[in-house]
């Protein structure tokens, strides 16, 4: 089973997949606990608008990496979602629904203006972990460094997740921290999307954290368990999927779901 990792493409898949798994599972604890599952999905779809804009611009700038347009575009959508949420009385899923529909619509308009067909849009939307390029690995490492840089905010984000008003009363800059969290989430989603595709991102953002929540009563332990479940699913799922000749991304999701349902049964027996 391990012979497959003698190939460079498998090594790249493992490195990038592990980084994406760890990062998404880490942020997943906030996504799950703040009931922001729809945000992950919404931002992943919003990135389509950015990719389409990049493809349109590539007509004049052929060397342009779509990521450099998709990332700021998705961050802008994420910040706009946060802004609408804070400035209106609309529920968060409504704000997400409005902004991601707008981003998708812009994407369709941008694509309609391109004169040539590009496979980039499909590659970004549906990504494949086995076709990870060296540039994708570098992007994943940048994402890992960005995540390490915001680790000191874990305590403040967790505090505001538990009780935002209490955190504000203790002078925690909750609004600013929320903008940072959504912006970093947007960057993580855009980079991860090219590597693993939209479907797998949504799974990584929710399933490991939800599994961890079932098995622990402390947020610190939940964070560690979520990261371990996410990383474990790639470490086990990637070689197994190759061995069984199954699509790797889909197999990893099935594996994560199996662990989730096992945890549910285990929790029910203990309670």
């Amino acid at each position, binding site marked *: 089973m391990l012979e497959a990792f003698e190939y460079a493409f498998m090594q790249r898949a493992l490195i990038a997949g592990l980084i994406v798994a760890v990062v998404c599972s880490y942020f997943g604890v906030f996504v799950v606990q703040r009931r922001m599952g729809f945000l992950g999905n919404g931002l992943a779809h919003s990135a389509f608008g950015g990719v389409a804009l990049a493809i349109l611009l590539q007509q004049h700038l052929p060397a342009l990496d779509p990521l450099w347009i998709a990332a700021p575009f998705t961050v802008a959508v994420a910040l706009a979602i946060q802004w609408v949420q804070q400035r209106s009385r609309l529920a968060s899923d409504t704000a997400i629904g409005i902004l991601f529909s707008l981003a998708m619509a812009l994407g369709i308009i941008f694509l309609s203006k391109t004169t040539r067909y590009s496979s980039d849009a499909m590659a970004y939307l549906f990504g494949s972990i086995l076709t990870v390029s060296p540039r994708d690995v570098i992007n994943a490492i940048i994402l890992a460094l960005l995540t390490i840089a915001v680790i000191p905010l874990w305590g403040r984000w967790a505090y505001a997740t538990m009780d935002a008003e209490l955190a504000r*009363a203790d002078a*925690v800059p909750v609004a600013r921290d929320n903008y940072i969290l959504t912006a970093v989430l947007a960057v993580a989603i855009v980079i991860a999307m090219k590597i693993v595709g939209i479907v797998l991102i949504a799974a990584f953002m929710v399933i490991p954290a939800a599994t961890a929540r079932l098995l622990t009563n402390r947020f610190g332990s939940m964070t560690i368990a979520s990261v371990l479940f996410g990383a474990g699913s790639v470490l086990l799922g990637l070689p197994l999927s190759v061995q069984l000749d199954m699509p790797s991304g889909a197999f990893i999701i099935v594996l994560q779901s199996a662990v989730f349902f096992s945890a549910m049964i285990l929790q029910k027996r203990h309670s």
Partner: protein
Amino acid sequence: MNAAVTVQNLTVRFGGITALEDVSFTLNEGGFLAVLGPNGAGKSTLLKTLTGLISPSEGSVRIGGGDSQVVSYVPQLKTLDREFPALALELVVSGLRRRWPWRISGEDEARAMKALKSAGVGAFARTPIAHLSGGQLQRVYLARGMVRNPRLLILDEPASGIDFAGEGEFYHLLEHYQHDHPEATIVMITHDWSVARHHASAVLLLNRRVVGFGHPDEILKDELLRDAYGHRGHAHTMQVGE
């Protein structure tokens, strides 16, 4: 005696709605202020302005000697995510660190345990907050508020969720805290006039404006209560009197 809270000509507006208008009062150190008034009177807005959660539209709020004073806020439980994975002990330590604790030091644990025990919930230190009753959680919140020995303790309807027997005990905990910390000042919203009469040293009767401020015996009178609450105030006074 030094002033613990000085509010001068405080007005708070949200868009076109005036929540508080020209509110002024001074509370001395060691005082226990009960804030009373009907729903929508601006009681929570006043408390949030004292904690800095809301900025005044006009006027000013001064807390004791300035920023060096330690202020603790015990909000209503409605903003708490009851499903958040946390132990009662962690919740109290968060009051010390002003962030969620990744690890708890021995010193922090000792201080948190002392606060939990003094609030009567030491036995629940390692209980997940999702498993606590409303009354137990309210006491944990009080322990969280007391753990950093605040000079000003601000409580928003702290007895909601506590049964009748536990309520009296809860107010005795507050009195006990003031006994141990004579310079500590308490500001608390309550809907219970008898609580204000028996435990507070001063009452602020509010209905967007100050209807009355002073000793409970001076303020909890039929005429002022009717001014604040309308005819309902009169009916309640009659029931209490009877």
